[in-house]
Structure formats: C-alpha cells, structure tokens
C-alpha cells in the first residue's frame, strides 16, 4: 500500500457519560516512526474530542473505529485528545490511549 506524503488532519467527537473534571494535562508516547504522541486536556464539553494529525493518509475509517472503541470502553466527557501520529498501528494507538486514560481515571 502506498501512503501519500503530507499530514492528514482528522477530527472525531463522541458523547461520554463520565466527566473527567479538572486534571493536569497528560502526555504519553513519543513522535517517532511507528509511534505517536497523545495529549489529554480538560475541555468544557460533555464529549470526548479527538484531533488527529497523522503522517499516514487514507486511514480515516480505521481511526474512527479505533477511537470509537476506545470511547465505548472509557466514555470520557470533557476531554480533548490531541494526537500526533507517525504511522502507529491501531495496536499502538489503543495502547497509548489506554495508558493516557489510566492517568486521569
């Protein structure tokens, strides 16, 4: 599969039932090949919003499925998740997000 060059920006928002309240921003992972950096910050919303910047274009459907499953499990509300991705696999994305969620739960 050839992956076109250039960054793709993706945005998803899912409702959540568990308000995170106030918390110090959490940063997990590193920006490196096959890896990603995810930052969780409090937001004045009743949703969990994901702002994804990824170097691997054309995988929006997979991102949506991964993030929806994460949110089904954690049901975060009042959180913005900013992701800088360098071609991480869904396995790594899920692991990083689980690590980050553990820090605020």
């Amino acid at each position, binding site marked *: 599969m050839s*992956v076109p060059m250039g960054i793709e920006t993706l945005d998803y928002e899912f409702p959540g039932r568990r308000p995170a309240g106030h918390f110090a921003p959490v940063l997990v992972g590193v920006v490196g090949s096959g890896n990603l950096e995810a930052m969780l910050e409090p937001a004045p919303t009743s949703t969990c919003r994901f702002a994804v910047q990824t170097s691997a274009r054309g*995988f929006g459907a997979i991102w949506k*499925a991964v993030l929806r499953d994460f949110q089904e499990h954690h049901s975060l509300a009042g959180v913005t998740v900013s992701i800088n991705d360098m071609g991480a*696999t*869904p396995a790594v994305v899920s*692991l990083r997000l689980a690590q980050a969620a553990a820090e605020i739960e």
Partner: protein
Amino acid sequence: MNAPTVWDGQRRSRATRLKRARSVCAGKVVDASQVGALLHALIEPGDRVCLEGNNQKQADFLARVLASLDAGAVHDLHMVQSVLALPEHLDVFESGIAAKLDFSFSGPQGARLARLVSGGRIAIGAIHTYLELFARYFVDLTPNVALVCAQAADRAGNLYTGPNTEDTPAIVEATAFKSGLVVAQVNEIVDVLPRVDIPASWVDFVVRSPAPHFIEPLFTRDPAQVSEIQVLMAMMAIKGIYAEYGVQRLNHGIGFDTAAIELLLPTYAEALGLKGRICQHWTLNPHPALIPAIEAGWVKSVHSFGSELGMEDYIRARPDVFFNGADGSMRSNRAFCQAAGHYACDLFIGSTLQIDLAANSSTATLGRIAGFGGAPNMGADARGRRHASPTWLKAGRQAREGLAGARGTPRGQKLVVQMVETFREHMEPAFVEHLDAWTLAEQAKMPLPPIMIYGDDVTHILTEEGIANLLLCRGDEEREQAVRGVAGYTAVGLGRDRRMVDNLRDRRVIQRPEDLAIDPRQATRNLLAARSMRDLMDASGGLYQPPGRFRNW
C-alpha cells in the same frame, strides 16, 4: 539374445570420472587453482548436482567455480540444494550450465528466481521443505556430484563441520553411498581435526578455499527492537497457551515476536510460577535471546538446525544444554533437528505475512518464489506420531470433542500457533480474504498455491487483540469468525459478526487480554530480561560475542 545386465553402471561411471580427475590432481587435496579443471573432469551434462547452499553456511568458493565453468562442456545440470542464497546459485542457470532446480528456500534470491522461471531459464521440479528435499536425496533426487562446505579437513580428507554442520551429513551420505562424488571446500587443512564429522572414505576431494566460507547470522534479534505490542503478545502466549497446555517441548520461529517470549521467561513467566512447568526442551538454533532463560535455569536441552555466529564460546561453556562433541564444540544437524521438531515437539509458534479466513498462512508474496524451508514441517501436526504427552493429549481432546468414528478416534495433536500483529509495518494487514499465494500459483503455473502452514494444522492465532483457539471451533463458519475476531481493525476484522464473536468469547474460543487477566498497560519493555545486545552479552558473562554489525557501543 539380451545383453548381460549391468549392475554397477554408477560405480563404473564414478571410476571413469575419477580417472579423468587423476590428470588434474593425484591426491585428495586439490589446489584452489585446479578446482575448475577438477569439476570439468567430474561433472557430466545432465548430472544432478548438490551445491551446498545452507540456511547459514555457503560453499561459496565452489559456487563461484561452478558458475565459471564452460557451458559448452557442462550444461543442463539439475541442481538439488536446500537454499539459494548466493547470486552464483542462479548465475549457473543464466549461463546455461544448469537447467532444472529442486530446492527448499530462496529468501534473498526469490525475486530473481521468479524472473528466471517466467523467462523460461529455470524449470522448477518442486519446492520442498528441508526434510522433504533431504528425503528425496535418498529416493529419486540423489546427487551425482555434491559440492559441500566444511570448517576444516585433514590430509586424509576427514571433515570437521563443527557448530554449523547443518545439511552436510545428509548430502554427503546420499551422494557417497550411491557412487556419487563429493568435493569439499574447507577453511583450513590441518594435521589433526578437533573431531571427525564426515569420514574421509565418504569424501573424494578437499580444497582449501582462498577465503573462509560465507556465513550469515540469521537468528540474532536485537532486544532493543522488541516493541511493547510484542511484549503484550508474548505475555498472552505464555499465560494463554504455554501455561494453559503445560508446553515443555517446543520450537520457536525466528522473528521478534518469539524473541520477546524468550526474553520474558526469566521475568514474567517466572513471576507466574511457571519455571520448570514450561519450556524445558527446545529444537532451536542457538538464539542469543534465549541466553537469559538458560542462565536462569529454565532450559534443559537445545538441539539445533545450525549454529549462530558469536554463540560458539557460550555454547561450548554450556554442554549440559547444547549438543556438543567430546572436543567441546557443538554439532548441529538440520535433518535430525527437523525430525525432532516435527515428531518430538508439542508446540511450534512463529509469524507469517498473511492469514486467510480459513487460517491458511503464507509468507509468499507476488513476484517472488521463496519457499518455506523448515516452517511447514515445524508447523504441521505429525500424523505419524504415537507417543503421548499431556500437552499433545489436551490439544487432541479439544479438537475431537463430540466427534465420532474415524474423526473422533482418540489421538493427540501438535499445537501450531501463528503469532502476528494485525497490521505489519506500513499498515499492511496480516489478515486477508485471499492469500497472495493463489495469484502467485497462477502466475508461476504452480500445481498448488504456496501455503506455508495449512489452516487445518493451525491450532491458535495470537494477535494483540487476543487468542483464537481453532481447536474448539466446530465448522468453517465458526473458524472464520474466530479468525475475524482477533483480526482487529483490518478489513477482515471489521467484517466480523459481532454477535458470533461475542458468543465465541463466552465459550473461551476467543480470549482477550483482559480474559487472561493481562492488562496491556503492564506490557512494557521493562519486562524484557535483556533490553539490548549489551545486556545479552552481559547475561552470558561475556561468553557471547555479537558480530560487529550488532554492536552499537
């Protein structure tokens, strides 16, 4: 009246060839400059020739000489060799010296081989497993001439093949006992060998090669490159399969996935109280990644297909674990180790490139003809096996529960585990609807798609999403959903029937990490018993000497 039957034609042919060779050299020891003339004297058009191409060591000097022969005099050879590793292994076809090929594995030459086959330059007899090809050496592919590789010879022609004995005994025995001719290249000629691996009476000529033979460290995996996901999968393998079935006798593939398991034995598995209950007997090359487990007292025995560069001194210092001669050095033997892996191991675990909905698995990719070496023998139930073990019996019971008649008759089954991340690098899915193997079979006009491990031999698929136990599946539909159920976010995984997958999970056909009480967040590199090449060296007490390319300090 019929002419009298000749019963010693092969022996007479051998005598004729040896007589021609006498004009080149008088004794067994040949000068390197004479080898071209010697091969011209020994080899006749249409001969079956085994040019020792191993998985690791290569008869590279003899390969260069063979490729440089006059194709007007030596042509239409039928090459029978396990591995095509060097350019010369294919040069002989391009120059017309050879025409037909029977082999096992062509890793680095796979793409060029495919081009030569489609261009009509090579007729492939068949692609074999190692054990299969060795078997045919003794049936209908016996070499007329074998060009082999040894560490050293004495002046009588005895050979010391040492740690990397590999294929040599099988090749030489088949050739020497059917009136064939054996030529060996050696790194040195000495007065007294450490030990005799091949007796002089089976060897016709020895030549000291101008440079030591090429050898490849194929089984060294730098722990620094083991990922957290591989740690997670290794935790699942240990807890969900090794502990579950009490696996004591096993073979590992060569990838980072299984290296991670080796590196978790003295840490994670030890903490689970599994020492002595799993992983005591191995058929395995001397993987450096196994050093920490050996040092922690986990391992009782390791028999090897070949050796591994840098491990010689470590192996020498651990004779209770490895198969070492009275001289102290190891002797590997690919034929025996393949037989051991097939008949005496209860589990094989390895990786692959593609798995389909029937759990067929293959590393074949378009535009390459590569073969599978030993994997199909390791990754297949040994239908001829008759000795029982608790592991084998448990797998057999799971597969036969509720069945009657011949299919329900009690017997055991080997555990065959395919361990893959759902996506490989560059987001290539490991799960596919159709293997590339099918297209490749059409393109190269193969009689069968090149499947590495057949789905009906695969007992478990392990991904970061969980373990699918195919022994418990009843029917093709359940099997397909079990595959989809651990295929994650690949198209195959997203196409699953959620209700059926939930049902399979309730029945423990599919187990997620949390079903095994494994928290993915605990899967960190801190669990690895060694996290770098330096750690492996230190764990060995300085006995393991990694090749230069693996030293970054």
